[in-house]
C-alpha cells in the first residue's frame, strides 16, 4: 500500500476509532460516546424501549435537556400553559429519572439549548462521537467531536445499545483563508458557503473546516460554522482541535481533570487529517470576499449581500428554479428586484443554537449600545442557555438590550422553531439570527430573514433590513 492510500482524514480517524464491528461493505456498528436527548424527539423512543422491555444500556453516557417547547418569559417558573408541552416536559423528566439519566430541566441552572449547553458543560470533547435527536448536532465539530442528528427510532437504538448502524460519509474539506472584513462574522461565512454549494451541496458528506480564517475564529464562531453546515445537507462536521479548544474546555464541569486532562491533551494532538489525506471535494473560500448576507427566500441558500437587491426570477433561465424563486418571493412578500434594505421588519429575534452564545450577544450589544429599537419593531433576545443569560447579565449586556427596547428573555429554542408561544403572526417579517427560513418555520405565514446577530441588531434599530457596516458599532 502506498503512503497516500493509508492517509486518513480526521473524520475517517474518528469513525475508525468508534467502529465496534463492520456490518457489511457499506456499514459499521458505530459506538456513541455521548447521547443528548430533548423533550420532543425522545418520548416515543422511551416508550418503544419500555414496550420492548429494554433498558438504557449506559445511562451515564446520556444527557437530557429541556429546550424546545418551554416558554421563555422573563420570569422563569415550572409552569407551562400549553398542556401538551407540559406533558412532554413531565414525561421527559419521568423517563430520565427512571433510567438514571442526568437531566437539565426547566429550573436547572444549566438549562438551555442542547447545542449550547453541551459544549458549555464540557460534555463534548475532541475525538468523541455524539448523537442527538436533532439535526444541528453537527455543532460539536467545532470541538473536534463528530456530532450528528438522528431520528427517534435511532434515539431508541442508541438508548438500548449505545451504538448506531452507520454508513460512513464521504469527505469534503472547506478551506477558508484570508481575513474577515469588519462587520462580517462566522454567520456570514457559513451563509456564504451554503449560498455557494446549495442546500444539498454537502449531502452525503462530512465536512472538515480548515484554513487560517477558521483557525482565527473563536470557538463560538466555529460552532456557528459547524452548526449551520447541516443546512447544506452535511451529516457531520469536524475541525482539528487546537489550543483554543483546549482553553475553551479546561475546567468545565464534565471536562477531564488532572492526569486525564494531560493524557487527553496529548491524544488530541493526533486529531487532524493526515497531510496527504484525500477529500472527494475540496473547496476554497477567501474570507475577505464575504459581505454581510441576508436571506430573501425560504431556503437558507437563498441569500444576497445586504447591499444587493432581491433577485428577479425573469433573469433565471431554468424554468424550475424560476418557479421556485417566484414562489419564495411571493411567500416572502418581496417584489422582484427590490433592494433588501427597503424591507420593513416587524420583529427582530436574536437567539438559537447558531447564534445564541455570549459572543453573539456581545456583538449585538455593540450595535445596540446607546441606540433604540425602531418603534414599530418588537425585538427579543433569547439567550442560548441560562448560563449565557447569567454571563451576559454579569457584563451588563441585558441593560443595553432592555434600554434599547429588546425583551430580555429566558433561554430556549423559542422562535427558532416556534414550538412554544414565541411565534410570528401571518405576514410578519422578522430579522432573525436563526438557521432556517423555511415557510412557516417561525409561525404560519411568518417571513424569516436569516442574518448575523449584529445584523439583526442593526435591522431592529433601523426598522428595516440594514447594513451593520453603515449603522456602525460592530
Amino acid at each position, binding site marked *: 500500500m502506498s503512503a497516500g492510500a493509508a492517509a486518513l482524514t480526521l473524520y475517517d480517524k474518528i469513525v475508525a476509532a468508534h467502529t*465496534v464491528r463492520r456490518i*457489511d461493505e457499506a456499514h459499521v456498528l458505530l459506538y456513541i460516546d455521548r447521547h443528548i436527548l430533548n423533550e420532543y424527539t425522545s418520548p416515543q423512543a422511551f*416508550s418503544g424501549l419500555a414496550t420492548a422491555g*429494554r433498558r438504557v444500556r449506559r445511562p451515564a453516557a446520556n444527557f437530557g435537556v429541556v429546550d424546545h417547547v418551554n416558554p421563555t418569559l422573563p420570569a422563569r417558573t415550572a409552569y407551562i400553559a400549553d398542556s401538551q408541552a407540559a406533558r412532554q416536559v413531565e414525561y421527559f423528566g419521568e423517563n430520565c429519572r427512571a433510567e438514571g439519566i442526568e437531566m437539565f430541566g426547566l429550573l436547572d441552572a444549566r438549562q438551555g439549548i442542547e447545542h449550547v449547553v453541551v459544549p458549555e458543560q464540557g460534555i463534548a470533547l475532541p475525538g468523541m462521537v455524539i448523537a442527538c435527536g436533532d439535526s444541528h448536532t453537527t455543532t460539536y465539530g467545532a470541538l473536534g467531536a463528530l456530532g450528528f442528528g438522528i431520528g427517534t427510532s435511532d434515539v431508541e437504538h442508541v438508548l438500548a445499545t449505545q451504538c448506531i448502524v452507520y454508513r460512513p460519509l464521504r469527505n469534503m474539506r472547506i478551506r477558508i483563508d484570508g481575513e474577515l472584513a469588519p462587520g462580517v462574522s462566522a454567520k456570514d461565512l457559513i451563509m456564504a458557503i451554503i449560498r455557494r454549494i446549495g442546500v444539498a451541496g454537502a449531502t452525503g458528506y462530512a465536512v472538515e473546516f480548515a484554513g487560517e480564517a477558521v483557525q482565527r475564529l473563536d470557538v463560538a464562531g466555529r460552532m456557528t460554522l459547524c452548526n449551520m453546515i447541516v443546512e447544506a445537507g452535511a451529516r457531520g462536521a469536524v475541525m482539528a482541535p487546537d489550543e483554543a479548544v483546549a482553553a475553551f474546555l479546561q475546567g468545565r464541569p464534565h471536562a477531564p481533570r488532572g492526569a486525564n486532562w494531560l493524557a487527553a491533551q496529548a491524544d488530541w494532538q493526533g486529531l487532524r487529517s493526515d497531510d496527504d489525506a484525500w477529500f472527494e471535494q475540496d473547496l476554497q473560500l477567501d474570507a475577505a470576499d464575504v459581505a454581510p448576507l441576508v436571506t430573501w427566500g425560504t431556503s437558507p441558500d437563498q441569500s444576497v449581500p445586504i447591499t444587493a437587491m432581491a433577485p428577479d426570477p425573469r433573469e433565471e433561465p431554468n424554468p424550475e428554479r424560476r418557479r421556485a424563486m417566484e414562489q419564495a418571493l411571493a411567500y416572502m412578500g418581496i417584489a422582484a428586484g427590490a433592494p433588501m434594505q427597503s424591507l420593513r421588519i416587524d420583529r427582530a429575534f436574536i437567539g438559537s443554537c447558531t447564534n445564541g452564545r455570549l459572543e453573539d450577544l456581545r456583538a449585538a450589544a455593540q450595535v445596540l449600545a446607546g441606540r433604540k429599537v425602531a418603534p414599530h419593531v418588537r425585538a427579543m433576545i433569547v439567550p442560548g442557555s441560562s448560563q449565557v443569560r447569567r454571563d451576559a447579565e454579569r457584563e451588563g449586556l441585558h441593560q443595553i438590550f432592555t434600554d434599547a427596547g429588546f425583551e430580555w428573555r429566558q433561554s430556549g429554542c423559542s422562535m427558532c422553531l416556534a414550538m412554544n408561544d414565541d411565534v410570528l403572526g401571518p405576514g410578519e417579517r422578522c430579522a432573525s439570527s436563526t438557521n432556517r427560513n423555511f415557510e412557516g418555520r417561525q409561525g404560519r405565514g411568518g417571513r424569516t430573514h436569516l442574518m448575523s446577530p449584529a445584523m439583526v441588531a442593526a435591522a431592529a434599530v433601523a426598522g428595516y433590513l440594514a447594513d451593520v457596516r453603515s449603522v456602525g458599532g460592530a
Partner: protein
Amino acid sequence: MAVFTSVSGVAAPLPQANLDTDVIMPKQFLKGITRDDLARGVFFDLRFDAHGAERTEFVLNQPAYRQSRFLVVGPNFGCGSSREHAVWGLSQLGIRAIIGSSFGSIFQDNCYRNGLLPICLLPHEVQRLLVLCADADCAQLRVDLLEQMVELPDGSRIAFSIDALRREDLLNGRDAIASTLQFAAEIDAFEHSHWRQHPWLAPKLAGE
C-alpha cells in the same frame, strides 16, 4: 416495522424542490408523546387553509390522488429538521414509498426505520414520473423491492438501487435493535478497550 415487498397504487406528484420536514409536519403536531394521530398534520399548511378547510388545489386533496400510496417528489425532499414525526405522518396517511432524486439524509434514515421506502432515481427518470403522474389516469405505479424496480402503467420498468442492508430490513420488517443486541458482547469488549485507551471518555454519573 411494516414489511415492504411489492405495493401498487396511485402516485401523487409533488415537484417542488427542498420540501423540508417543517412543511411536511409543522411544529404544532410535534407535541405528543406517542406516534399516533399524525396523518392530519402531513403538509398541513399546504392541505388546509387558515380556517382548516381543505385547499382543493393541493394534489392530495384531489379525488384521484386521495388514496395515493406513493409520492413523486422534487430534489432534496425531507431536508431540515430530524423530526421523525414527518415519516410517521406520511405512513399514517398511507404513503408507502417516495420517489425522488435526492433526500434529506436524516429523513431518509427515518424512512427506512419505519417501512417507508425512499427510492432514489436519476433526475430525468423522476421528471418522467412527475409528468406521467400529473395525469391522474396514468398515475398508477407498482413498486417492487424484491426486483428493485418501479413499474409504469404501460408495463415499462425503471430499476433502482438501494442500500443492501436497508433492503433486507424493509423486506423482513427487521427489528434493528434486536439485530444490534446480538453483538452485545462485542460492544462490551469495545467499550472496555476504548475506555482503557481514552480513560477520559468513560462516562461518569454525577457525583462519581
